[in-house]
């Protein structure tokens, strides 16, 4: 380097420029250098350097650091001027302004939406006055794998309140489909038309107290304390009793006069940020589902909520709950002579979860509604910061890339006496102006995108317009982001030396091109990972939808509410007479989520006392189940109601044969609460999510069920549904006909996969756009830097083709490098994601090639715009001025 021959150490010079104020810096540094040159003539370079450093160090005094204004400035006037200049330079380069602001706004909008989402998730269950004292009980079983679930026996809540002085209040809830909880038909007792409603749950009066449910009508302390009463939400009150107080009126469920409930009160609708959401709460007062149910520890069907007394220690209470386990549950098991008593004593814990933790910290706790996950909150927050960072970096890149344009302006300003501080202020004003415009645009984008994103995330997100902090926070962030994004460009641009700039010898950018390339690689790596991720998620989705399930889901109509039919047999026969209907079966158990499940412990008969049971589904079906559903029998025979002994017969699946280790399954005896004979074995079919291995399952004969499955034998589903509707209306004129197609219900089970896929696709598109903006800026910068070189090449006879190649190949190398980095990363991440699924698609190379190809194409497209423009430019234009 030539500079080291007769110039002082750069670092000292830089240090000096850093601390010294603008007023003195130029002149004093000039003095130092003049002295230094003089010294060089007399002494060694080392000595001169040392003395130079000494000069710099001794200058480090308050007078040199302190800012001073020598010429009077008019801040307002300067600001006006700065804004005017910024505005003009924005207008002069319309395309760059659009890219800069558009890209920035896009990043900001993404960030804002994610912030809204995160805020929504974090405010779950924060609205109770006593939120720090409200807990939900849950079970934890530390067996082979950790299991946790929330259901408890009926008496647990009562025991909790009577035996533990810390407990102020305890209440029970049955939130899932069970007896009248779940979904029902509803009508007023003075009307005949039934309406289908969801959102029924059983609850104790004390639960209203614990959850601090605000009442619209009725007394909050007594609304549910009488048997056969209901509390309905404001929404339902407005629907069934518009404009009146329905307290004391009667609603009839399922068109059954025995299920008449009088309304004890009307509650406010549950807030969107509550982990519970019900429209009908049915009183549990004096309810006993079967004799002895309320005091037995056999059956666990209740969720228990509790409010502790102020100052009570939840951790200590958890310890004490072990005595409840031992005195009630373990004793019950011992009375039953159940072998698992000692195992329970060792591994089964009763635990408490703060109500504020339910939404985000319930991972691993089996719950009826899927909860959020704090890890996703972290992930999304990280993505938000990351996108904001990328947007800022692109902003910086675009600003510095256009520096050649501004260099002359900077030079001229310095010549006529502008100080560095003014220039810094000017460029900062400019970037803050950009930032504010971007923020306004971003808020617009958020408003447009929010409905779509709400759908994507399955949440009702709103902008909190009325919050007092909204405007200050937005304005503050606009300023902050503007300053952060503008800091580097403004210092960079203001550092140009006027002489060099105006002589035209400035070769800026060379030293930061490495950084820029790194940015491009970084952005494209992210993009490619996201593209690969999107492909694989969609592939898994299509794998799930097209997998061989072991049953037919096409051409199947599910008729809901079949339990309300007076005579199912007649209706079924009537359906079978329709030409479009191939088969009908009635059951409540289907391989679709949201239908009934019944898990029981099973043993090979005779081993009850010596072995641990296996958990198996116990489904009651009719004789047409297998044929209608298309489930294949691999051994034995179907259940047959004509054979009397078949009331104690079961058909089991292959997984159960394996789990029970049955050598000769046909004729074997299995036992649960009763003893059954195996008469047939069916092929395994997927009755739970693809995430889990197919578990053991047995089918038993029984009449009745809530769903009638109709197999249609033609492609004309519309016509078939029409015919079925007509039949239904003949039987049940006052009851709406509800049906779904089984394939759609099946697809809905995997909404979360679809959702993840959509979110990934959205992020992938955003990342690609952001990355392309960066690449575009870089290619524009390069093309501009090499304008003269290209012109000369063209004059000397280079073809447009070769120029194009010259300008694009470097970028393609960068994208190639990104792919090399992204492929293993994506492979690792997506293997981890797929590992959640017991049944999954393969990670194949074509996805990677396709994603890489897409990235290269997009990059090529972005770069070629600038390259072609440079290659097609008339060389005379750029060389003329020489």
């Amino acid at each position: 380097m030539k500079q080291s021959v007769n110039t002082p150490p750069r670092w000292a010079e830089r240090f000096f420029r850093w601390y010294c104020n603008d007023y003195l810096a130029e002149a004093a540094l000039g003095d130092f250098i003049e002295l230094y040159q003089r010294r060089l003539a007399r002494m060694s370079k080392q000595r001169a350097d040392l003395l130079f450093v000494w000069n710099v160090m001794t200058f480090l005094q308050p007078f040199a650091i302190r800012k001073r204004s020598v010429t009077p400035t008019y801040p307002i006037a300067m600001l006006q001027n700065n804004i005017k200049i910024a505005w003009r330079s924005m207008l002069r380069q319309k395309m760059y302004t659009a890219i800069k602001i558009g890209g920035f706004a896009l990043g900001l909008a993404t960030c804002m939406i994610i912030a809204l989402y995160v805020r929504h998730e974090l405010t779950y269950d924060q609205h109770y006055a006593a939120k720090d004292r409200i807990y939900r009980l849950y079970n934890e079983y530390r067996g082979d794998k950790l299991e946790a679930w929330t259901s408890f026996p009926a008496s647990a809540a009562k025991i909790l309140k009577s035996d533990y002085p810390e407990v102020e209040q305890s209440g029970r809830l049955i939130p899932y489909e069970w007896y009248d909880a779940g979904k029902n038909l509803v009508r007023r007792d003075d009307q005949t038309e039934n309406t289908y409603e969801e959102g029924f749950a059983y609850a104790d009066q004390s639960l209203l107290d614990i959850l601090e449910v605000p009442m619209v009508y009725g007394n909050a302390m007594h609304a549910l304390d009488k048997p056969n009463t209901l509390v309905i939400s404001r929404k339902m009150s407005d629907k069934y009793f518009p404009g009146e107080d329905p307290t004391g009126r009667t609603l009839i469920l399922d068109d059954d006069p025995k299920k008449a409930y009088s309304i004890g009160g009307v509650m406010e609708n549950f807030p969107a940020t509550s982990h519970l959401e019900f429209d009908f709460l049915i009183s549990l007062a004096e309810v006993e589902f079967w004799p002895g149910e309320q005091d037995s520890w056999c059956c666990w069907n209740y969720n228990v909520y509790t409010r502790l007394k102020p100052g009570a220690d939840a951790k200590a209470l958890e310890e004490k709950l072990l005595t409840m386990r031992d005195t009630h549950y373990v004793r019950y098991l011992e009375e039953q002579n159940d072998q698992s008593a000692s195992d329970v004593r060792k591994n089964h814990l009763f635990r408490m979860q703060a109500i504020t933790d339910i939404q985000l910290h319930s991972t691993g706790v089996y719950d009826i509604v899927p909860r959020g996950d704090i890890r996703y909150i972290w992930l999304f927050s990280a993505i938000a910061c990351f996108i904001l960072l990328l947007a800022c970096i692109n902003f910086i890149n675009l600003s510095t890339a256009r520096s050649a344009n501004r260099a002359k302006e900077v030079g001229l300003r310095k010549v006529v006496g502008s100080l560095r501080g003014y220039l810094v202020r000017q460029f900062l004003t400019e970037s803050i102006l950009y930032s504010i415009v971007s923020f306004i645009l971003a808020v617009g984008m958020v408003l447009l995108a929010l409905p779509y994103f709400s759908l994507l995330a399955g949440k009702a997100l709103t902008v909190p317009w009325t919050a007092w902090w909204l405007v200050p926070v937005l304005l503050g962030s606009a300023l902050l982001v503007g300053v952060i994004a503008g800091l580097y460009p403004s210092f960079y641009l203001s550092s140009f030396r006027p002489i060099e700039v105006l002589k035209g010898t400035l070769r800026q950018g060379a030293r930061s091109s490495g950084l820029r390339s790194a940015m491009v690689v970084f952005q494209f790596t992210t993009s490619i990972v996201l593209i690969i991720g999107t492909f694989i998620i969609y592939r898994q989705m299509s794998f799930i939808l097209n997998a061989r399930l072991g049953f037919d889901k096409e051409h199947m109509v599910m008729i809901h509410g079949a339990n309300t039919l007076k005579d199912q047999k007649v209706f079924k026969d009537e359906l079978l007479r329709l030409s479009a209907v191939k088969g009908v079966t009635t059951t409540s158990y289907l391989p679709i989520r949201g239908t009934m499940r019944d898990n029981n412990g099973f043993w090979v008969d005779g081993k009850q006392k010596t072995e641990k049971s296996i958990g198996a589904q116990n489904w009651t079906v009719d004789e047409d189940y297998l044929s209608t559903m298309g489930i294949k029998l691999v051994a034995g025979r179907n259940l047959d109601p004509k054979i009397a002994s078949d009331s104690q017969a079961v058909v089991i699946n292959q997984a159960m044969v394996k789990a029970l280790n049955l050598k000769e399954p046909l004729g074997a005896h299995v036992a649960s609460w009763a003893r059954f004979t195996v008469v047939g074995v069916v092929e395994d079919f997927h009755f739970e999510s693809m995430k889990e291995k197919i578990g053991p399952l047995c089918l038993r004969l029984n009449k009745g069920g809530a769903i009638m499955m109709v197999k249609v034998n033609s492609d004309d589903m519309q016509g078939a549904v029409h015919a079925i509707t007509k039949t239904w209306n003949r039987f049940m004129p006052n009851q709406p006909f509800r049906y779904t197609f089984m394939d759609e219900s099946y697809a809905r089970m995997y909404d979360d996969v679809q959702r993840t896929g959509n979110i990934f696709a959205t992020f992938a598109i955003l990342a690609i756009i952001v990355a392309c903006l960066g690449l575009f800026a870089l290619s524009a910068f390069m093309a501009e830097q090499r304008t003269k070189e290209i012109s000369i090449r063209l004059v000397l006879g280079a073809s447009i083709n070769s120029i194009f190649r010259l300008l694009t190949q470097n970028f393609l190398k960068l994208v190639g490098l990104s792919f090399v980095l992204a492929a293993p990363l994506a492979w690792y991440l997506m293997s981890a994601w797929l590992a959640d699924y017991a049944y999954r698609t393969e990670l194949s190379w074509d996805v990677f090639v396709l994603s890489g190809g897409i990235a290269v194409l997009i990059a090529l497209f972005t770069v070629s715009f600038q390259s072609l423009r440079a290659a097609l430019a008339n060389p005379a234009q750029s060389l003329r001025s020489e």
Partner: protein
Amino acid sequence: MKGTYLGEFEELVLLTVGILFDDAYGLAIVDELDRQTGRNVMMSAVHKSLVRLEEKGYLASRMGGAAEERGGRAKRLYTLTAAGKRVLQDSRDMRNTMWKQVPKIVWEGGKA
């Protein structure tokens, strides 16, 4: 003389600026002080005084005279203002008055 106290070093700097007339900048002042007084002054001391004197209004400055050996950097050139000239004049007048009041005998080697 109220409120316009001029330190000894400051007075020297002011005088040097006067001597150098059109080319009074940091390094030149250091050189001139060296030549005139034989003192080896620090660059920072000179600049510090210059800044203070300008603040007091005795000096005015402008940028100019960039040169190759300065790495292309301009000098800050100082000139005496009217106030600067007056304060030098005042200082000299005061001294003269005081000189005159010293009895001749002091100078002529008489015993005290």
